[in-house]
C-alpha cells in the first residue's frame, strides 16, 4: 500500500526546541488548486491499480493551521474526483492538537479519520508556544484537543521524543507517559538534531539504548498493563514471528512512500525532502504512477541487495532491521546509501544486552 506523506504546510504554531521547522524563514503552504490536482492523480493511480490503496498522511508543520476551506476542499475533491476510489484512500493525520476545534472533528469524520497521531511532552521548556516555549499553555491546549477527540470517540496515540532531559528520570517519565494512556499507544523515539544544539538536548545513540534498557525490564514485567509501547511491543511481535516494522526498519520504503510538499514537490519522505536528498520532480508535472516508478527508487532496492551480500550478510537481525533508514546511511562524498546505519549497531546492543536476556526470545 503506497503511503503519501502529505505536507500541505511548513508552518507550525508550536516551538519545539529540537525542531528545525522553527528555523524556516518563509514556511510555505499549499494552494487549494494543487490539492485538487493531487486528488485527481490519486484517482488515476487507484484506477490503474485496482488492488492498491493509499495511506494518506496529513503532516506538517501543523496541518490544523490550514484554514477550514482547505479541509472542506479536500472533502469536496475526494467526493468529486475520487467517487469510485475514495474507499481506497485511508486518511491519517499527525497534529500537535493545540489548534483542534469542533469543526476539525467534522472534517476528520468526513475523511474517515478515526484515530489521530500526536506528540506529548511533560518536561517543561521543550514543546511550547511562542518564543518562550510556553509548555503550560501548550499542554493546556493539547489536553483540550485530547478531550475533544475523546468526546467524539476518536482514538489517539502519541510519539514521545527522547531528549537529554528525558534521561534525568526515565522511570518517572515512563510512568507519566503510560498513565496518560492506560490502554497503550505510544512510541519513544530518540531526538534527531542535525546541526546546532543550543539547548543541549541531543543524546548519543548509546544513551538512547540505555534509556530504553532502563525501561524495558519494567515494561516487560507489566506488559499486559502497558501493551502497545514502542519500540518494545513491536520487537516482541517480531520475535514472536509477527511482522511489525516501521518505515526505518522495513527495508521496503522505496516501494511504498511518496512525499508531497507544499509546492507539489515530490520526494521519498519528509526527511529526504527536508534534507534535499531525493527529488522525484513535482506532482504538477508527473503522475503518481511515474513518481512511484521513478528510476531513482532503484537505489533503495540496490541498497537492500548490497547490504544483504555485504555489511549485513551475517547479521541475525537483518529481518527486523534491513540496515536501517537509508537516509541515515547517506554518504555525502559517495552520494549513495550503500551502507548500514549507526543505529544498526545500537539496535543489536539493545537486543543482546536487554531484550534477549530478559525475554528469553532470540532472533
Amino acid at each position, binding site marked *: 500500500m503506497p503511503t503519501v506523506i502529505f505536507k500541505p504546510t511548513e508552518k507550525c504554531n508550536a516551538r519545539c526546541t529540537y525542531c528545525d521547522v522553527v528555523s524556516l524563514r518563509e514556511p510555505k503552504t499549499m494552494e487549494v488548486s494543487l490539492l485538487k490536482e493531487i486528488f485527481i492523480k490519486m484517482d488515476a493511480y487507484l484506477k490503474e491499480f485496482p488492488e492498491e490503496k493509499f495511506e494518506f498522511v496529513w503532516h506538517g508543520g501543523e496541518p490544523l493551521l490550514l484554514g477550514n476551506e482547505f479541509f472542506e476542499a479536500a472533502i469536496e475533491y475526494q467526493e468529486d474526483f475520487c467517487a469510485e476510489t475514495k474507499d481506497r484512500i485511508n486518511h491519517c493525520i499527525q497534529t500537535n492538537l493545540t489548534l483542534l476545534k469542533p469543526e476539525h472533528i467534522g472534517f476528520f469524520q468526513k475523511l474517515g479519520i478515526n484515530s489521530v497521531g500526536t506528540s506529548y511532552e511533560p518536561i517543561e521548556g521543550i514543546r511550547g508556544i511562542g518564543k518562550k516555549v510556553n*509548555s503550560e499553555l501548550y499542554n*493546556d491546549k493539547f489536553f483540550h484537543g485530547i*478531550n475533544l477527540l475523546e468526546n467524539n470517540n476518536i482514538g489517539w496515540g502519541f510519539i514521545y521524543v527522547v531528549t537529554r532531559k528525558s534521561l534525568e528520570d526515565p522511570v518517572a*517519565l515512563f510512568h*507519566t507517559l503510560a498513565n496518560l494512556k492506560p490502554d497503550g499507544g505510544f512510541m519513544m523515539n530518540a531526538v534527531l538534531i542535525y546541526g546546532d544544539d543550543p539547548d543541549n538536548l541531543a543524546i548519543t545513540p548509546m544513551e538512547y539504548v540505555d534509556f530504553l534498557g532502563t525501561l524495558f525490564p519494567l515494561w516487560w514485567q507489566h506488559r*499486559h498493563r502497558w501493551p502497545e509501547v514502542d519500540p518494545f511491543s513491536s520487537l516482541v511481535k517480531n520475535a514472536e514471528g509477527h511482522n511489525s516494522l516501521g518505515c526505518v526498519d522495513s527495508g521496503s520504503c522505496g516501494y511504498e512512500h511518496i512525499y508531497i510538499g507544499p509546492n507539489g514537490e515530490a520526494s521519498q519522505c519528509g526527511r529526504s525532502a527536508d534534507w534535499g536528498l531525493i527529488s522525484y520532480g513535482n506532482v504538477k508535472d508527473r503522475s503518481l504512477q511515474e513518481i512511484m516508478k521513478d528510476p531513482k527508487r532503484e537505489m533503495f532496492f540496490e541498497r537492500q541487495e548490497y547490504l544483504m551480500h555485504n555489511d549485513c550478510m551475517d547479521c541475525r537481525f537483518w529481518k527486523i532491521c534491513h540496515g536501517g533508514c537509508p537516509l541515515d546511511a547517506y554518504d555525502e562524498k559517495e552520494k549513495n546509501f550503500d551502507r548500514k546505519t549507526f543505529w544498526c549497531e545500537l539496535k543489536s546492543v539493545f537486543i543482546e544486552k536487554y531484550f534477549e536476556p530478559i525475554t528469553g526470545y532470540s532472533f
Partner: protein
Amino acid sequence: MNKMKHILVCEDNEELIRKFSFEAIVVKTKNPEHVGHIGRVVEETNKVHCIELTIEDNLSGLNPLDDWKEVPLHIKAPRMGHFLDFVRVRHLLAPLSVRVFLNSGYEETYTDLQLMSSLGINCGLYFDENPINWKECTDLMDFVVYPKVPRATVEPFHYIITEYQPKETINFSGVYFNNPEKYLHIDKNENVALTAENLTAGKYLFNGVEQIQNIAENKAYKAYFQTWKKKFHKISACSACPAWRICGGFFENRLESNPGCREAFSELIDAADLHYNNKEKENEKQPQLCQL
C-alpha cells in the same frame, strides 16, 4: 428521569427525600434510631441504595436495632473499641447487610479491621485529615489481597482488586459514595454537587433536583472528568506513580505531609494484576474430560 442513573446522596431529611421518585438514594445520618425509619421513608417512592450511619463513639458501644435488618447499611465509626464489647456487637451486626468503616488515623484500626474481617464482618478504612500509617495499611492490604482462608471484605482494597482492569483507570471513591460518575450529592435546598466536599464547600453544579436529568450536558460535570489531566501538564508525583490507575490521585493533598501512598498502592496494583491474571486463567477453557 436521571438518564445517567446517578445515585443521590443526601442527609436524612424526609421532606427532601419525598421530592424524589424512582431514585436510588444514599442517606447519611448520625442518628442510629433514624436508620430503620429513614429506610422505610425512602422505600415509599424510591429505593434505598444504602444508609450511611456516622457515629462519634466506638463501634463496640453501638446498639444495633431490629429494624436495621431491612436496609443496606454503612457504619462509620472512629474505632472498633474494646474487643470484648465488640464481640457483643458482632453478633448483632452479623445478620445485617452492613459494612463497617473505621478511621485510618488510629494505630489499632489496621489490626482491628483484620480482626473484623476474620470474624466475618465486611469492613473498611475511611480516610479523613488524620495521618495514615502506610506500613500498617500495607500489612492490612496484604491480609486482604492474599487471603489464606475465606474472610469478609475490607475496603477499599477489595473493590480495587475486584474492579481492576489492566488497561483502565478506576476510581475507588465510589466505596465512599463519592464518585461523580455514579453518585451526586444534594442538600436540603436541592443544591447538587459532584462530591461531598464540594457540597460542603458550596461548589454546586446547579440547584433543583429536576436538573439532574440533563446532567450529561452540564459543562462543569463534563469538565470534572477531565480535571485529572491537569496532573499530566508536567511530571508530578501522581502522574509518575506506578499505581496511578488504581488511585487517581486520591491521596494527592496529603503527599507532602504524609507520603507513603506510592509504595503501598504500588504493591496493591501488583496484587491486582496477579488477581486479574489468576481470574483470566480460571476463565480459560478447561479441557473437557469424558463423563465417567
